[in-house]
């Protein structure tokens, strides 16, 4: 029997300076994802919070549906929906205080909207307009990040900078299961732990990286277990239980705010829609699997809890659905207005000031626009 086969069988005297840097036991996640809805513990939850979560879930689901419909109408270039994952999106946004920062991935448009970003501006990137569409400082939401996991070190740096300045700011960074395989995931968690930066990492484990399932992504017991290797607590939560995700994230945010350092939360959920409207999910998974998860729907779970406890009635449910329809109608109407882009802006914000080469190129484009009688040419003289 080798050392690998039987840990503890070989106990040499440790090298002179060796000691464990931290006790791993409290950092380990529970064996099962944490649940609240449908359990006795749910009785202690704030009814107002549950109603807020529910309203956001219902509107969020409708938002995902409407945005996907807009891709079919040619109004959005692409939309990576978070259908089925709304509990993670909503809870992440609501777990933060006003002064905190959210670092979303490209699938987290909904979290940005719940945090207060205008739903149309949140879709600027995805409709083929400019790359961000909003000033990150306005709602303290970093730009939706496309290169996987690269936003995670940004969250660490920002939270670290805020702490150095003595500001009370926590950063919450979202990443998918696929993103955890990127090197930046590792580097961000390591920096955060070494610096004890006030950051909460939320792994939204939706089961797929486009088509690649979890088994081909990781051999770890869970993503939450990875936290132990960095010396931070890892927590595992049912990602479709909005109350549970909200509670776990809120505790992690409080812990970070109090100077306790970073934490890693894995929310186990499922991507009900395909990767994007351009993807065909039937090539890599069965309808039966999807149905299993539809039976564990985040809206149904919360609606069941609210109904059982008499916290909502049919009128209340109808009112939330009507609010969601109004949101969708507003989105439809505003997204059908074509954005006006000025081609001469291509040369702005490359640098603080245009270089001589960019001035030459701007002049060339201006002349081309003038020759074609297109707008944009006339304003250029003022720049």
């Amino acid at each position, binding site marked *: 029997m080798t050392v690998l086969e039987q840990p503890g069988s070989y106990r040499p005297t440790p090298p002179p300076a060796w000691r464990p840097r931290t006790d791993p036991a409290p950092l380990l996640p529970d064996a099962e994802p944490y649940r609240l809805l449908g359990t006795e513990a749910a009785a202690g939850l704030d009814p107002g919070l549950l109603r807020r979560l529910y309203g956001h879930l219902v509107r969020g689901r409708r938002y995902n549906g409407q945005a996907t419909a807009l891709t079919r109408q040619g109004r959005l270039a692409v939309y990576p929906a978070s259908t089925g994952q709304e509990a993670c999106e909503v809870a992440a946004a609501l777990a933060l205080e006003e002064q905190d920062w959210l670092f979303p991935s490209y699938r987290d448009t909904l979290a940005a909207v719940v945090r207060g970003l205008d739903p149309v501006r949140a879709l600027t990137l995805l409709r083929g307009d400019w790359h961000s569409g909003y000033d990150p400082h306005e709602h303290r939401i970093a730009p939706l990040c496309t290169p996987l996991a690269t936003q995670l070190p940004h969250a660490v*740096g920002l939270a670290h900078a805020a702490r150095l300045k003595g500001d009370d700011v926590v950063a919450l960074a979202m990443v998918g299961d696929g993103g955890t395989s990127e090197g930046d995931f590792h580097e961000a968690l390591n920096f955060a732990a070494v610096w004890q930066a006030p950051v909460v990492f939320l792994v939204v484990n939706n089961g797929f990286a486009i088509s690649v399932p979890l088994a081909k992504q990781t051999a770890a017991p869970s993503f939450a277990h990875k936290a132990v290797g960095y010396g931070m607590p890892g927590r595992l939560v049912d990602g479709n239980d909005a109350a549970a995700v909200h509670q776990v994230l809120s505790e992690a945010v409080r812990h970070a705010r109090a100077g306790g350092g970073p934490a890693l939360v894995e929310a186990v959920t499922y991507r009900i829609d395909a990767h994007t409207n351009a993807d065909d999910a039937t090539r890599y998974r069965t309808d039966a699997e999807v149905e299993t998860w539809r039976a564990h729907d985040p809206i149904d779970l919360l609606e069941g809890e609210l109904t059982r406890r008499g916290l909502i009635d049919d009128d209340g449910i109808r009112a939330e659905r009507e609010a969601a329809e109004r949101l969708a109608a507003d989105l439809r109407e505003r997204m059908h207005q074509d954005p006006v882009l000025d081609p001469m802006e291509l040369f702005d914000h490359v*640098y603080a000031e245009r270089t001589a080469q960019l001035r030459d190129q701007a002049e060339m484009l201006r002349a081309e626009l003038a020759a074609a009688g297109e707008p944009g040419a006339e304003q250029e003289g003022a720049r």
Partner: protein
Amino acid sequence: MMTTAVRAGRQPATMAQALRRALRDAMADDPSVHVLGEDVGTLGGVFRITDGLAKEFGDDRCTDTPLAEAGILGTAVGMAMYGLRPVVEMQFDAFAYPAFEQLISHVSRMRNRTRGAVPMPVTVRVPYGGGIGGVEHHSDSSEAYYMATPGLHVVAPATVADAYGLLRAAIASDDPVVFLEPKRLYWSKDQWDADRPEQVPGIGRAVVRRPGSSATLVTYGPSLPVCMEAAEAAVAEGWDLEVVDLRSLVPFDEETVCASVRRTGRAVVVHESTGFGGPGGEIAARITERCFHYLEAPVLRVAGFDIPYPPPMLERHHLPGVDRVLDAVARLQWESEWTETNPGGR
């Protein structure tokens, strides 16, 4: 220790001392300036450029990071988002490659992506280039990669005064600057007053280091001393060479370069970086486009060979030297007609 730089009046000073003083003065003037990198704290950096900074400003201002370049630059992005002015040290040119995704996908584009709302005042210091007998991965000239990325300024000082002035300008810039420090010039000396550093032109301005009338040598960074030496040696051959030090590759000072070439009618671009796909191709093309009717000869390039950086025992054959520069000058059609049989041809 800082004491080496604190002396009265103009004294012999090394480029390393000027760089250290620039970091120190920038940190003293602006509390938002933070230095971070591998070994920059207690050790003072492997080249000692950050020596004394952690002691003077504390570990929070000059921070030894975990050994991960993408993490260093990625966290610097977040720090810049929050209003700090990070100065990142990449330990060696070839160790900067893990940070490329952060540099290209975020540092260079964040201002553009956010339409000016989130600038990236990040300075990335890169000890670069060969000639120090370094083993593999310690001698790369990686400027062409950076030049090809819109949104980055690319700066390479060649003198002690420029090392100080350009690094101060880089740190003060609201744009990201890749600051290439020619490591074989770290110990080169000039007369320099650390307490009253001379004003130098800003980033984006080239400087004529040696006026001349026969031909223009266009160069930057570690190749400047080579070109200056070549220009002196050329006097014996009857050539009066002008030497233009670009100082920054981006922005590129077309005006100064073209004004010189229009005067001399001939140009050779000299750099250590590979010739194929290297900066010299872009510079030669621009000179040709702007100065065609003034040119007496094709613009030539003297560059490193198109090979992975060679082992130290062979690097003297790879690096552009005085003889190779003079050979190129000899090929600049001094007779009325260009001939392939020119003896200087290589």
